[in-house]
């Protein structure tokens, strides 16, 4: 494409240059022709004028000479003094040579055949007149004045004929000169025509070139306009796409930032309210180890250990769904459980029902559709009171190594689902002997999936607990966590993993 354009441009360029050269050539030619013609004409005119002038002068000279000679003769006829007569005769003789001189010069200037003939004729007549004039001088000398006058007159007539002829010649000469001028005029006109036609040719060629150039320019202009338009359209399109894409990216980025900010907040909230290790150590009679690992997108697991007046309240629960809303509800539940503990509410049914009502009313206000499972354990001196609906509670007895799974389905109802759950709250009591182990967990453990889509299941948890129950609580905890992680492998973790291990302390 590029090469084609280059070639076309080159061709155009060459054509234009050639055209320009042609115009210049034609103009030069016409100028030189014009000049040479003009010079010729000028030279000829000058020549003609010169000649004409020269010839006129000479003819006039010849005429004057003849006249003056005549006058001299007339004068002599009246002269009586012989000295004067001689003087005049001398003058008279001088005239002859002057006349010849003029006539020779005239001939030298170039005469037509006719003029030559005329001059010859005149010479004859003048010759005859001269003879008579010579006789006049003789007659005057001889004092025959009358005869002399008569002869003079005769001669005069003859001279007059010459004079007239000379006059005619001069007039003819004038005509010849005029016709030469006319010829020059014609030549000039022709030259002018030639020049004009050459100029016209030059203009024509120029017009063609200009037309050609204009055509090229227009074509290129059109092409350029088209290209510019396409470029502009492409530009506009590009800008539009850039704006769209930027908006897309911005909103994705904003969304990502919002999500990550939310995640941050969620994790912080979860962390903030977990019981500290020192608090766990303060529980008399019970060793407690807790573990919570939030999943990427999930937030909403809850556990707590509260100590008031020798009474320990242990809670574990799971808010449905994930995100900020779930975390906020979890916060509310933690606060409600503590508030009721502080208020020394002893009746489990009331405890859970008040808590449920408070959560339910708030959830309604929030327009949320979330609820939560919640198990509460009251512990004092080895006596454990369990209520609320959540996952199973695992108990391993040191004495027998036997493992019990205590179902909480009938001990409660999801919190926040309806305004009154008092009908569903029941308690389950057990007594812990030293070394007995209790494990509480959220559904993140049994529902943990591996790459083969196999669930961890409570059975496997029970196996691990049963195997490790004799060890200290933190080791039991570690064993479970390791095993769950082993199971999950590299698969995605969907739910928070929460674990509480309790062991009745040995008597000191």
């Amino acid at each position, binding site marked *: 494409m590029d090469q084609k354009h280059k070639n076309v441009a080159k061709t155009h360029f060459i054509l234009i240059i050639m055209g320009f050269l042609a115009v210049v050539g034609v103009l030069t030619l016409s100028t030189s022709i014009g000049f040479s013609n003009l010079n010729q004409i000028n030279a000829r005119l000058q020549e003609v004028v010169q000649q004409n002038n020269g010839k006129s002068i000479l003819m006039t000279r010849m005429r004057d000479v003849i006249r003056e000679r005549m006058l001299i003769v007339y004068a002599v006829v009246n002269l009586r003094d012989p000295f004067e007569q001689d003087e005049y005769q001398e003058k008279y003789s001088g005239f002859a040579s002057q006349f010849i001189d003029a006539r020779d010069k005239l001939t030298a200037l170039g005469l037509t055949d006719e003029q030559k003939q005329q001059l010859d004729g005149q010479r004859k007549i003048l010759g005859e007149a001269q003879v008579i004039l010579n006789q006049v001088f003789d007659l005057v000398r001889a004092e025959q004045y009358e005869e002399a006058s008569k002869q003079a007159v005769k001669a005069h007539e003859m001279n007059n004929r010459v004079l007239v002829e000379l006059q005619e010649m001069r007039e003819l000469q004038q005509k010849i000169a005029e016709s030469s001028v006319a010829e020059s005029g014609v030549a000039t006109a022709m030259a002018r025509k030639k020049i004009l036609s050459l100029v016209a040719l030059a203009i024509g060629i120029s017009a063609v070139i200009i037309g050609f150039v204009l055509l090229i320019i227009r074509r290129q202009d059109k092409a350029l306009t088209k290209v510019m338009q396409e470029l502009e359209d492409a530009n506009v399109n590009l800008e539009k796409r850039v704006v769209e894409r930027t908006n897309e990216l911005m909103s994705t980025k904003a969304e990502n930032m919002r999500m990550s900010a939310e995640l941050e907040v969620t994790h912080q909230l979860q962390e903030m309210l977990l019981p500290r290790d020192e608090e766990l150590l303060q529980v008399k009679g019970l060793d407690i180890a807790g573990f919570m690992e939030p999943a990427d997108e999930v937030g909403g697991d809850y556990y707590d250990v509260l100590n008031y007046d020798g009474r320990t309240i242990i809670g574990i629960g799971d808010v449905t769904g994930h995100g900020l809303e779930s975390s906020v509800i979890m916060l509310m539940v933690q606060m409600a459980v503590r508030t009721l503990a502080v208020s020394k509410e002893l009746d489990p049914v009331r405890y859970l029902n008040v808590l449920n009502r408070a959560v339910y009313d708030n959830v309604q206000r929030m327009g949320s559709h979330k609820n939560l499972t919640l198990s509460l354990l009251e512990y004092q001196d080895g006596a454990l009171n369990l209520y609320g609906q959540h996952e199973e509670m695992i108990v391993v007895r040191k004495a027998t190594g036997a493992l019990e799974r205590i179902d909480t389905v009938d001990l409660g109802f999801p919190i926040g689902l309806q305004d009154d759950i008092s009908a569903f709250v029941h308690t389950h009591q057990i007594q812990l002997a030293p070394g007995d182990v209790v494990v509480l967990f959220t559904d993140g453990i049994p529902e943990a999936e591996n790459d083969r889509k196999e669930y961890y*299941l409570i059975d496997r948890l029970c196996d691990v607990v049963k195997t490790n129950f004799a060890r200290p609580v933190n080791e039991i905890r570690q064993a479970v966590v390791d095993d769950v992680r082993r199971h999950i492998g590299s698969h995605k973790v969907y739910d928070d993993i929460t674990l509480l291990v309790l062991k009745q302390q040995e008597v000191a």
Partner: protein
Amino acid sequence: MATIEGENYKVEYNPDTATIAISGALRLGGLGEYAPIIEVLNAALDEHTNITLNMKQLEFLNSSGIAMLSKFVIEARNKETVDLTLCGSSDVPWQGKSLINLQRLMPKITLVVE
């Protein structure tokens, strides 16, 4: 026959038999993502008075999904004229507890557990 199909699950609503069958594993993130299924359930509520929800093939349902079912049951309960039958499988872990809770929400429910 309205069908909703996702990556791992399928929801089929048969208007003629007023049966909604849900199968697979439902792990959608929040009630927002469950909206299409909620629509199907509500449509069934509008069109019929005797509805069957078949969850025998529903291997897994996350807490948001269970919350969705709870809402559905509360809606059905509030309609007073509706009879609801829930079909489940004892092999599926999550169903044991949840089906009991759903019946507690609406005692009229008929539970068919295989």
